[in-house]
């Protein structure tokens, strides 16, 4: 199983760098994924607002939310999401929130 090592900790991920066991996600994992995969040294309150929403949405519907829903829930304009997560909503924000890779051309 591929894995990433960050701050001396080891996280199992799939080939795309998404969490191998999405159910094992916690805030520590989010911080480590953000650092290793998105180059974010620290997660701000704004990052957390997006990540928590995605996580709750996923736990409820077993589905990645559309970027429209992320913006509605957090009140952020669209561009803010790309500013916060350099790889964008799918490969950035959803990854930090511990979701599996969304299906399709992403």
């Amino acid at each position, binding site marked *: 199983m591929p894995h990433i090592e960050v701050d001396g900790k080891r996280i199992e991920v799939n080939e795309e760098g998404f969490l191998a066991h999405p159910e094992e996600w916690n805030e520590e994992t989010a911080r480590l994924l953000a650092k290793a995969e998105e180059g974010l040294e620290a997660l701000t309150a704004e990052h957390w607002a997006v990540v928590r929403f995605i996580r709750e949405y996923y736990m409820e519907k077993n589905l990645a939310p559309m970027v429209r829903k992320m913006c509605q829930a957090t009140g952020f304009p669209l561009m803010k999401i790309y500013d916060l997560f350099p790889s964008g*909503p799918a490969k950035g924000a959803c990854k930090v929130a511990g979701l599996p890779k969304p299906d399709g*051309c992403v």
Partner: protein
Amino acid sequence: MKEGRLRTYEPGDNVQRFLDLLGRRITRSLAVSMTACVHCGLCAESCHYFLARPDDPTMAPVWKADQIRKIFKKYIDWTGRVAPWWVKAGSLRDDEDLNRLKNIVFGSCSACRRCTYNCPMGVDTGLLVRFTRGLLTELGIVPEGVFNVSRDQWETGNQMAVTEQDYLETLEWMRDEVRTELGTASVDIPVDKPDCEVLYTINPREIKFDPRSIAHAAKVFHAAGESWTLPKWGWDQTNFGLFSGDDKLGAYVARNVYEAAERLRAKRIVISECGHGYRSTRWEGYNWADYDQKLPTESVVVTLKRYLGEGRIAVDPSRNPDAVTFHDSCNIARSGDLVEEPRWVLRRVCTDFREMFPNRRENFCCTGGGGLLSMAEYRPLRLEVAKIKAEQLRATGAKLVCTMCHNCVDGLNDVIKHYKLPMRVVQVLELVSNALVVPGRNETKKTAR
């Protein structure tokens, strides 16, 4: 097997089902590709898999194609019955063999057709690969990612299972964003409006994860005074039938688009920047769907070129001062014959456009083509052989790499991240939208990227 008689199989007899399908589906052009290869090796030199792993013969297109050819020779072609050792006929024994075949045709080929383009005998290895994928897909021997997306396209009419409500809401949202940006309520993103000049069809990722491109399109259509609409159904121009080799799925998805245009009496179909969607909707879909399509179908880049050529939109290239290089999508340049149009547009909207080498129909794949982006299991090999693409990108010295394919956007982003290149991926619409001069608008305002 006689016509009209139902053949039954023992459960799990995948080999026999595969061989029967192979015999039934073989066409003249496939038979040529099955028999014309002289093993000259030119295809190897054109394949980024082989160039990145020159000591591994299994990376050569000829070897990959031989794995289906030897089955054809053994069971279908008469030469295999007369001289099997001479034509290298080979058995297909069990599920293990089928699985190995799956890993070859899905996992070690992005179906970019660069080898096809360079074959002196006219062997279409890309066609062989897609054909073999189609046989395996029929048996359910298919990577999970391709399966999931195909299921979503069958069930919901779009590859990301976007609901109609979500689709409409996102379009309204983007309409409001463009209204705010341009400071006018006259901007619209119409849905299901009849008798328009343009029926605009998109990639579901634009709705689900990146609607900026819809805003760019709306802005340009507004500036050009275009009469345009998106359809409420039949808006997904992408087509996983191309990747899975399933012509039935290909027909269903393409027909949705053609019928939307007919229903709304649109004058032409315009396809947003998507490589495989362009090839599927513009070229392959008519045959899959057996559809007598009379409307012109074009890429939005062709539309942009027309607007610029006719003076319907004005641009200021100084707003795109960074060095831009262009990445030809395989499905657009090699398989779609759309090569000079994007360059014509880029030279007018950027100040520093530079080619990468090789380019045009000889360009290397982004490495994510043929549906590989949705097959996580093959990613390590994909990124390893991407070193060819990375070197090609790095040599341009450009800050931006522009492509007219969403799949290439993600494929190139993966290469850039993995090989730590100082580049960003953009699309043609984004650069045109950036450079667009809209009359009466406060031009000091920073344009949205």
